[in-house]
């Protein structure tokens, strides 16, 4: 007990580093569980309206830019790889590599957001934003607006989580640059990685559900 009390990486409520690490992991997984239900409400709304208006969904999904969507999916999958390489570097005590991989991951996240911004801009220009300015030619104006409402809600919420994730990873990179992490203590890297992968997972489902309805 006295040895652990001098270890500055061990918080006072924990008895040892193992307990601390396992608690941090369980905590982050539980948080991801809440995120599943959080996004889940949107998936619920999406499912309901897709069931009611399948044709409108198919028609409006074709107005999405599939190539950009696929590109973004590839970008995020790659960022998950670089994230897991960052975690590996942390576990092996290679701090410079850790920082490098974190920056690359953040970079991919940035690419994703830039592509998304292009897509949003395109939607504005094409009058596909739901509400009084929705004047794009479609068969079912109302149902198509429902589709796009959910498109903006789901991708918007996802993008917000990406921004938070970038902020999180930047903080982790900064902490790494101050030598806060060792092979024995790198919980923040690992659990930030879990968060980042989760954001990727959400997109893995969003891509086919929003971009690939109806055959081409």
């Amino acid at each position, binding site marked *: 007990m006295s040895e652990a009390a001098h270890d500055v990486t061990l918080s006072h409520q924990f008895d040892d580093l193992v307990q601390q690490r396992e608690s941090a992991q*369980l905590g982050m997984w539980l948080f991801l569980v809440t995120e599943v239900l*959080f996004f889940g*409400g949107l998936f619920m709304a999406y499912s309901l309206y897709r069931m009611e208006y399948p044709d409108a969904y198919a028609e409006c999904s074709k107005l999405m830019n599939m190539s950009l969507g696929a590109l973004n999916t590839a970008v995020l999958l790659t960022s998950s790889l670089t994230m897991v390489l960052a975690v590996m570097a942390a576990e092996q005590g290679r701090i410079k590599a850790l920082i490098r991989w974190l920056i690359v991951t953040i970079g991919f996240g940035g690419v994703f957001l830039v592509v998304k911004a292009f897509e949003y801009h395109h939607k504005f220009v094409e009058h596909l934003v739901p509400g009084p300015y929705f004047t794009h030619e479609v068969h079912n104006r109302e149902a198509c607006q*429902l589709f796009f409402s959910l498109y903006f809600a789901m991708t918007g919420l996802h993008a917000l989580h990406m921004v938070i994730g970038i902020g999180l990873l930047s903080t982790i990179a900064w902490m790494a640059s101050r030598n806060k992490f060792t092979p024995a203590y790198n919980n923040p890297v690992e659990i930030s990685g879990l968060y980042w992968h989760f954001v990727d997972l959400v997109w893995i489902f969003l891509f086919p559900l929003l971009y690939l309805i109806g055959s081409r």
Partner: protein
Amino acid sequence: MQSLDNTESYLGSEFNLKSWLLTFDHKRIGILYLLTVTFFFLMGGIGAMLIRLELLTPQADILQAEMYNRTFTLHGVTMVFFFMIPSIPAIFGNFFLPMMIGARDVAFPRLNLTSYYLLLGGGLFALAAILLGGVDTGWTFYTPYSSTYSNSNVILMGLGIFIAGFSSILTGLNFIVTIHKMRAPGMTWFRLPLFVWAHYATAVIQVLGTPVIAITILLLAVERGLHFGIFDPKLGGDPLLFQHLFWFYSHPAVYIMVLPGMGVVSEIIACFSRKKIFGYSFIAASSFAIALLGFFVWGHHLFLSGQSVYAGVVFSFITFLVAIPSAIKVFNWIATLYKGKIYLKTPMLYALGFIGLFTIGGLTGVMLGTLGIDAHVHDTYFIVAHFHYVMVGGTIMAYLAAIHFWWPKMTNRMYPEFFGKLSALLVFVGFNLTFFPQFILGYLGMPRRYHVYPPEFQVLNVFSSAGASILAVGFTLPLFYLLGSLVWGKKAGRNPWGATGLEWQTASPPPTLNFDKTPLVTEEPYEYHGEDMPNE
């Protein structure tokens, strides 16, 4: 920042404002919650008094229709989101859960403080919404009224609830990790106090359910603010989508409100019967059964909204099932009382009140789960009476029981027993006088959420309002005598009730790190053997 010096009590170790407002100590955080939650209880209570004053006569008196709508919304929102849901878990769960498992604190103390500020922040948004004129949609915010047509501060109030929701989620998360990872040596799962089991089940609901209402409110705010419509019938949107999403959380939410109370009752019944709790594992399992089944009954709030009748039948059947684990608890509590050495102290009076009143409320809930009955009494005072029986007759009784049971541990002072009993009596009498007539009123057809009513309902309404004033006295008295006890109360000592449980093994008030050294648990829980209570 509070020091980690364990030689002084958590109250005395540092006494400046900053050490309290920036504390990581779960006990101090519990006290912060106590202050905030009490404030919101008073605010919601003012709403209740205005309602009962208005309903003394069949005509409009002090509140016209528009204001009346805002008043009952204020009452509902404040009581549900800022009083009932935090109450027992945030105050007593925070204060005692770590102690009951022999830990120094919760798993994530900083997250715990964040949870507190989220409740406070959300509450401030809600307060702002109220001061700016309030909301007139009812606490249920049904669309498309709330999303399109209402001219009140829906977004601001919604944001307040959204933020407070995260307080609940993070508290639940914290408790789950704490219970899994921070138990003292020897504290096996089946040696845990039932209060801990109850809070685990509650935490599961908080984690799985609250995010759904969070996203629902967010969608509502986006629809109002940006005019995206997904609840808008003009766009082919389905108003029932909102109701499904809303009640998917809000039904389990009522179990967030009641399960901790049941945990409190288990502790108190055992202690004040001087007897081991009967059916420990059944009570523990029933908490999880309630949490589980409680997630699959939400459609019983939509019986008359246009939901499919076939879905209604399924939801009705599961609603019947969810009563069973609650009944199991009631039977086990009664079996515990049987041949026990009963001490009718204030906490026990409230706990006994819980058992009786919750049973009435629960049985009327089963009645409401019956499609045919609900068709007749939906949106009447029968519903109002039902949920007040379980929420007030149930949870608030348990809350008051908890305050009186653990006050000596938290403050090292005994409250005056005479006034404790007096308040309990006033609460019991006042409560029944207020709400029993409402069962009759609802059955006779008086609708809820109206500021006027047909004159033949006046007598029962007058009884109800009279009861409310007695109830108000019963609720307010404790404020005075509990505060007074801080100055004039008898010193309590370590264990004035002779209770089992680790929290009673340490000093009153407890030291900052809870125990002088980490306890080693060797006993089964509730090792009462009919011994006398100390000082009796």
